[in-house]
């Protein structure tokens, strides 16, 4: 009696796994008919999100973000540069997105992954579209340096985002990570050395500082995103990598904290996005924006208490 029970349990478990492997689309549709997903989430719920600021001590700003299993690490380095002739009173912001082979079985060492430049371009477009950062604030001309008419220098923000674990919704996690790192960013003090160039102040040098001590960057309305999958009549929020590979229509909506639509990104896919589906996605994204903003505010206030 006990032996047959054990055999039956084992065989039923094997059958479920085999069904999932052999017929993944039907396996998911069986779950969708019950308004649930294979990992137990309802259709419109995002995975557990955690934000950790200051993960890289040597960087000017850093953040580690996890959404479910997807993990993103962002570090920011600031340097002094000469601004371009087209915009002499602005700094610049450069974002790079890296997918090392550790993050996914389909990423090979050597050549960069296919998704890497696409997410990088998407991030740059989103952050520049939202005007979250005033690039004029990065300029060093003005203030105490206004009397030096020949002085021409500005800060350059270089942001590197590393994907440590790719389990779907890469752009969402990368954007939260980039935003969290920028909110943690401390602008370093700079001084003019004997050669007349502006260099970063390290420790307690006797040089005269051009700007004040370290200060935070002013962020205007902050963008947040949510990726949804459209499949027949269902909308699945925050997909995993398995769900993304099986169902091919992805819609990414970015809203900022003032309610403006920053991006509506749908790169093809067999399902068409109608007005009602887009409105539902925007509604889900609106809820997600409030949720993420409270996470980020909580983490920032915790950092301020520590300092």
């Amino acid at each position: 009696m006990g032996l047959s029970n054990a055999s039956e349990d084992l065989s039923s478990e094997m059958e479920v796994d085999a069904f999932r492997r052999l017929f993944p689309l039907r396996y998911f549709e069986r779950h969708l008919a019950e308004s649930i997903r294979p990992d137990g989430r309802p259709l419109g719920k995002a995975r557990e999100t955690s934000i950790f600021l200051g993960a890289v001590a040597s960087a000017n700003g850093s953040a580690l973000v996890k959404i479910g299993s997807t993990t993103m690490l962002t570090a920011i380095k600031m340097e002094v540069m000469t601004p371009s002739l087209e915009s002499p009173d602005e700094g610049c912001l450069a974002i790079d997105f890296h997918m090392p082979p550790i993050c996914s079985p389909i990423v090979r060492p050597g050549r960069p992954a296919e998704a890497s430049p696409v997410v990088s371009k998407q991030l740059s477009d989103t952050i520049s579209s939202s005007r979250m950062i005033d690039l004029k604030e990065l300029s060093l001309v003005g203030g105490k340096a206004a009397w030096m008419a020949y002085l021409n220098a500005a800060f350059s923000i270089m942001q590197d985002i590393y994907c440590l674990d790719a389990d779907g919704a890469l752009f969402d996690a990368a954007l939260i990570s980039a935003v969290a790192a920028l909110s943690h960013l401390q602008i370093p003090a700079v001084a003019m050395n004997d050669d007349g160039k502006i260099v970063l102040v390290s420790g307690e040098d006797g040089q005269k500082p051009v700007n004040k001590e370290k200060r935070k960057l002013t962020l205007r309305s902050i963008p947040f995103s949510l990726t949804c999958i459209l499949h027949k009549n269902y909308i699945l929020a925050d997909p995993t990598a398995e769900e993304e590979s099986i169902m091919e229509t992805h819609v990414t909506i970015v809203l900022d904290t003032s309610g403006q639509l920053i991006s509506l990104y749908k790169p093809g896919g067999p399902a068409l996005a109608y007005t009602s589906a887009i409105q539902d996605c925007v509604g889900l994204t609106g809820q997600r924006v409030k949720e993420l903003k409270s996470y980020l505010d909580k983490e920032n206030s915790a950092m301020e208490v520590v300092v």
Partner: protein
Amino acid sequence: METDRPDSQTPNQLRPLACSCSCSILHRSHGSASWAQRETKVLAAVYGPKAGTKKNENPKKASIKVIWKPKTGQIGKVEKEYEMILKRTLESICIRTIYPNTTTLVIVQIVHDDGVLLPCAINAACVALVDARIPLKHLVVAICCSITDSGCIILDPTKDQEEKMKAFINLVFPNTIVSVLPEGSLQEGSETMAHGIMTSITQGAMS
């Protein structure tokens, strides 16, 4: 409200189109098309279906590979993103179960860029696929709309106008053959198929 455009077009007016597709453009390709919207011009070529699929592709279906060649220089992140969008869009309109274990190569060469580059390339690639007789579910139509600070929508902006606008959005819609399909199949739920968005890329903030 009215907005003056430097090229004296109305807000809803498309720029003049010039489209030609035949084997007289490129002799070696199976299908080719040249698509111009005023100054912006794109040349598209289609080769295939050729036997075999690359790894990481599904051999049960036909796969599409897109190569985007800029006018000068190497391809960067912008071109990589355009390649991905074009590949996903073309995969959506092709009937990929007819030729399994094959690869169709689509090469897009930019001849001149005066704004509205991605919609121009999508239109050219679609015409080239038709010329190559690749089986398609439907055609696609790509446009670009830009939004001024006062909220006015301008269709088909030039590159100068694009840089002055607050936001713009590239949209791709399906376009069915109405003479063949029965009336009921054009409906999906309460909306016609032509109202559905196939691809959407936005830039700048909207409300």
